[in-house]
């Protein structure tokens, strides 16, 4: 259905393990998400989750994963977008669902994915002086950070 509407912007789809999944291009992500929310046959009114995945060594390296749920239709979908390592930027989905705000901040904090147009793209779990993005695969698990003083 998504392929029919957005054509080549939908790279691939599958329903492995019973989860409907679509890999889409990042250029029209906000348009696609708005369509998923508003189309009367889909009505994905809940943005349940957003996260990043780091496929280190693959190209494109990063993946942003949206999990959506429809209250009325009782179905779920997973939307994925691949991002290149040197340009990990995607449009923010906050205009579509305000509740996705903190999920995007978390993905930024943990993976360094930049959400363009996000109202307040700051670190959320870690402090501002933290160096690096800890859920990237090339971030060592035992790495220590410099000790910091109190916020000024």
């Amino acid at each position, binding site marked *: 259905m998504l392929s029919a509407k957005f054509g080549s912007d939908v790279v691939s789809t599958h329903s492995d393990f019973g*989860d409907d999944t679509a890999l889409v291009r990042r250029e029209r992500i906000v348009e696609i998400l708005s369509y998923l929310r508003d189309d009367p046959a889909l009505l994905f009114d809940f943005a349940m989750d957003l996260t990043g995945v780091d496929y280190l060594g693959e190209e494109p390296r990063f993946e942003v994963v949206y*999990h959506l749920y429809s209250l009325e239709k009782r179905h779920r979908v997973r939307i994925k977008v691949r991002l290149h390592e040197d340009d990990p930027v995607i449009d923010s989905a906050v205009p579509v*669902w305000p509740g996705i705000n903190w999920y995007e901040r978390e993905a930024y904090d943990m993976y360094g994915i930049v959400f363009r147009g996000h109202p307040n793209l700051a670190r959320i*779990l870690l*402090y501002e002086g933290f160096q690096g993005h800890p859920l990237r*695969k090339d971030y060592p698990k035992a790495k220590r950070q410099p000790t910091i003083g109190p916020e000024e």
Partner: protein
Amino acid sequence: MTDRIEIEARSTHLDMQAEPMLINIGPSHPATHATLRFKALLDGETIIDLESEFGYLHRGFEKESEAATWTQVIPYTDRLNYVSPLMNNVGYAMAVEKLCGIKTTERCDYIRVIISELSRIIDHMVCIGTNMVDLGALTNFWYFWKPREEVYKLIEELCGQRLTTAYTRIGGLMADLPDGWTDRVLAVCRGVIPECIADVNALLTKNRIFIERTMGVGPIAAKDAVALGFTGPCLRAAGVPLDLRKDQPYLVYDRFDFDVPIGEKGDTCDRYMVRMEEMRQSLRIIEQAIAHLPGGPVNVDDPRFTLPPKELVYENIEALMNHFKFIMEGIQVPAGEAYSATEAANGELGFYIVSRGGGGPYKIKVRPPCFPLFQGIRHLVKGQMVADLIAVLGSVNIIAGELDR
């Protein structure tokens, strides 16, 4: 849309022009229950704006999981929602089972339902109890402590632990029920739990002080709750009847007869009422599940996922090798990705897991139910009093362990 507060905002409705005051509540404050921080911008005692922060308990669950085997992650999941760890165990095990294509045994499903509902009851008890402590009604907390202790004794019999249960396994459970366990569950579910619910109900539900402290405090409209991603009792209190046990039944929930209570205004009082009724409905589910509890094994009969029996390990080289490979290399999960959603005490608990084959997860992401709730607090308390923030915070039930991970 930004969740940073604007310090420049000036008070408008006071006769005397005064600077708004910025105060910090938390990160270590008796009413924040855990390590949470609020920066509240006040006009007198009215909250003009609020910024909430967390991350003070962040301990890297997801990073640690990537360096563990699939089974080794189970004890980590206990520490997510430490008030109802059994539900986290169940949610995680179901996600991995989805990826492996395992169909768990019927007895296992029934037991998982029973332990989930017991967890829901104690979770709601802690939530209501601590919420009332913040409002100065300490007695309710003590009333709810007693049944909670009884349930912990049952959990201890089940798996030897009270808090860090790690009871589920991929494809089944750690062990079958001990002898007579279901009778003791029924005794608690017919005795001390309904008694204590009735006591608290009598103390609070028609109590004028309680009503005035909670009614109309922290309300949210249904459409806002949906847009913010609320789930669980906080969403149902706003009048949206979303309950995954009914809407997308998992385990064997579709076989039980129970109701989903909903509220109207989504205020603190409604959240309390919804939780009280949910505890009674959970008791109904437990009664039915125990009445129809089937026999048979609790683990799937598949040597790829189930540890060989200990007697065999001691006398049979194949079983010993199988055991060794299990522990050292972990269960071999096929490559792929899966998202499993369960209705935890707080709302939708989701596990998104990615496997690239091999013995350990490539990626695990938890969708903690209180994450959107905590984000929504700003929306709930704007224009209310400082004391209302305390009432609202307790009523949405923030669990820092799963919020920060």
